């Protein structure tokens, strides 16, 4: 597949945006400036970037508790995101959702979800709408290896296949369901094998390679747009930080394992490829980082200067 240079740069920019946002959020959390818990996407950037680079604003995604990367990749605004993490009234959810429920329906992002596997049946519903509208829209369900054992995934996949819905089940297999390694929570090595049980394609891809993810996602999404039904796209990836927060993970992972995955950092790898291909030079690459850093700083400032919600707002928005 020949990928146009601007799309390659888009992939790179999305990944840098996710990385810088998440590292900033992690720092703020350690400083006690973000209430509650964060689940950081650092290390998994190629998956969100590669998949969302195939999507339009009127395509839908459902997300996980580790949802910041998905929202950034779908076009999320840093300021509105930081504001939501801080619980400010100007946040994407007016401060009522926080990290685990961050959402933007305008961007087709149907929410991070605090329930493992909770987004899968919802993505099927969104895909139902897509099929009814007949405009070629698709829905993508992001979920992890842990979620692949939830009944919700199985009901969703069966229904998606039965109704031939335009939904991509994108498994971000980072080898751990919370603190439990994959080989201790399921008997398959490839979650993609489970697609056969529902009679649709299951594809495994190197989730640290943004171009590979983009190519596999393009094919699956193209098939869905054309009415060919669902695909289970399993991206082998890795989270650098802990399941939640930024604590060390040596209690259940080895430093050697972490370093092995970091050696194949998705941003470093794509950056090197783009330099090799002549799509970017070093000045251009640095300019991307600088520009995104500046936007992050701008967004953070917006969030810091935003007000907290009025306590009376507690009662609003339960019912339409």
């Amino acid at each position, binding site marked *: 597949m020949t990928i146009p240079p601007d799309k390659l740069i888009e992939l790179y920019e999305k990944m840098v945006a996710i990385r810088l946002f998440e590292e900033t959020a992690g720092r703020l959390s350690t400083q006690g400036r973000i209430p509650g818990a964060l689940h950081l996407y650092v290390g998994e950037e190629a998956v969100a970037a590669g998949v969302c680079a195939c999507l339009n604003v009127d395509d839908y995604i459902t997300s996980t508790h580790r949802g910041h990367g998905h929202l950034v990749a779908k076009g999320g605004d840093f300021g509105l995101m930081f504001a939501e993490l801080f619980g400010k009234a100007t946040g994407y959810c*007016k401060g009522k959702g926080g990290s685990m429920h961050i959402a933007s*329906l305008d961007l087709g992002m149907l929410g991070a979800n605090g329930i493992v596997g*909770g987004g899968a049946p*919802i993505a099927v*519903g969104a895909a*139902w709408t897509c099929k*009814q509208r007949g405009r070629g829209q698709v829905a993508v369900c992001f979920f992890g290896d842990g979620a692949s054992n939830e009944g919700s995934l199985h009901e969703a996949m069966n*229904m998606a296949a*039965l109704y031939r819905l335009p939904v991509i089940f994108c498994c971000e297999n980072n080898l751990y369901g919370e603190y439990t390694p994959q080989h201790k929570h399921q008997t398959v090595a490839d979650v993609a094998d489970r697609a056969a049980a529902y009679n649709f394609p299951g594809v495994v891809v190197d989730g640290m390679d943004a171009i590979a993810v983009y190519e596999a996602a393009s094919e699956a999404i193209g098939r869905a747009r054309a009415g060919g039904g669902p695909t289970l796209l399993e991206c082998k990836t890795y989270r650098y930080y802990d399941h939640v927060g930024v604590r060390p993970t040596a209690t259940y992972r080895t430093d050697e394992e972490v370093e092995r995955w970091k050696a194949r950092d998705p941003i470093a790898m794509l950056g090197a490829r783009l330099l090799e291909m002549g799509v970017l030079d070093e000045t251009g690459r640095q300019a991307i980082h600088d520009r995104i850093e500046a936007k992050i700083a701008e967004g953070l400032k917006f969030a810091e200067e935003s007000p907290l919600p009025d306590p009376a707002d507690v009662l609003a928005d339960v019912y*339409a």
Partner: protein
Amino acid sequence: MREIFFVQAITEAMRQEMERDPDVFLAGEDVAGHGGTFGTSAGLLDQFGEQRVVDTPISEVGIIGLAVGAAATGMRPIVEIMFCDFIGCAMDQILNQLAKMRYMFGGRARLPVVVRSTVGAGLRLAAQHSQSLEALLCHIPGLKVVMPSTPYDAKGLLIAAIRDDNPVFFLEHKALYRIRGEVPEEPYEVPLGVADVKRPGRDLTIVATARMVHEALAAADRLAQRGIEAEVIDPRTLQPLDIETILASVKKTHRVAIVHEAVKFCGFGAEIAAQIAEAAFDYIDAPVTRIAAPFTPVPFSPSLEDAWLVNADRIVAAVEQMMPVPAA
């Protein structure tokens, strides 16, 4: 005016709304080809086709999730959970997704979903097909809960529920499907959140839901023969509750009994009783009485199920404990 069965009132409400609004569709187990286990969707597949009347696998998580996702992206789904007992299978999608999405997203999601489900005992279907679980649903902010007792109310409330932009649980008592009543042919709404005085009276207020409305009315007839005029109020919508109609009645009669088929402990009657005690303490001459089922699963054997079920006899006996009732 013509009389139709309660079940037909349900079908007519869905048909008329589906005719009016192409975004309304129905999905559930056996709703299409079979016309619904209780016949509530008879004829709809032939009229609207399989994109709008959809048979699902036996997948309650998937059914509710389908509704959540379709509604959040602009459609107006009606989904069916065949027996309310099966909400257990779907409880995450109901309580953590459907109910909460709007609030968690700062009001920026709209989920116009109707979940139709059946409630009720008396058909010898035993513990897992006979419950009335409205109290669980009423406890979850973000859901609305409706329990019609007559064909007229059923059609009007279902049309209102379909037009409501919130998740509404529409609970149909199985034993009411074959009752008949006058129902206008044209579409009409019975507003959600408005109670109905089914029988005016001055001596006693009886608040009753679903099939117990009819048992309460039968009890009221028997009490009337003994000189006690009971006012029977049907809340119709449990969430949001029209407490004002109930309070106005209690302030008039000074005595109130609450009747529901569900288990008494933590039943919906406890909420009404507490609200009356809070808002009308000075108006009541006796403690609020709840007449409801004992704290057990629904038994199978007819003699046991009949001992479990509230009926007009038990309502009259309870009223006799609440106030002087002249001999028959």
